[in-house]
């Protein structure tokens, strides 16, 4: 995301399926010896990546809500995800 923004591209980011867990508040992975990357998310704003969305049903199925997230994001449905993919010149999945 950051590299693409550095190339001054117009980016939209969608968190979906297990990806939604990345945006949870109060992450603490110290006990399992893994790097907590959630502090890096404010960098998205600094790089001007503002179009950040989360797929609604991915949240609901996991028993989560927008209130559980680190910062406010727009919730979108599957139809909107498909539309965003269609509108994009290039789609990357990670």
């Amino acid at each position: 995301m950051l590299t693409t923004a550095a190339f001054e591209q117009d980016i939209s980011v969608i968190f979906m399926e297990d990806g939604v867990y990345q945006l949870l508040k109060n992450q603490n992975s110290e006990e399992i010896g893994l790097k907590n990357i959630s502090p890096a998310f404010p960098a998205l704003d600094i790089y001007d990546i503002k179009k950040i969305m989360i797929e609604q049903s991915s949240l609901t199925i996991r028993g989560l809500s927008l209130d559980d997230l680190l910062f406010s994001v727009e919730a979108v449905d599957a139809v909107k995800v498909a539309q965003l993919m269609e509108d994009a010149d290039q789609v990357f999945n990670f």
Partner: protein
Amino acid sequence: MKFSIVVYGAPYSSEAASTALNFAKAVLANGHTLYRIFFFQDGVHNATTLSVPPQDEQHIPEDWKMLIAKHGIDAVICVASGLKRGILDQGESRRYNRQAVNLSSEFSISGLGQLVDASLKSDRLINFGV
């Protein structure tokens, strides 16, 4: 048309790497150009010099080498993915004081910028193994 290919899969762990190889050959055989092949995450394993597959099976890393050398393709492995997985060229091996160099000379090491550049400069970017 100008194609770029991104390979995420390690050879033999799934069919991604060999399908990507077949696709690369088909792109060239059909008169199109290959702008870049970018090896990312587990895909960096395709660039090893140390693979010893069984004699009666396809030698995927070797096939990549031959294709890249024959057509002068720009084949890049991601530096972060390569370091983590121990696929090193001389520079990285020296820098981190490691015992060996195992990156095939047909490949170069670079960063994600090469992937973004490929997506901007190619007509089609095709991913294998995501």
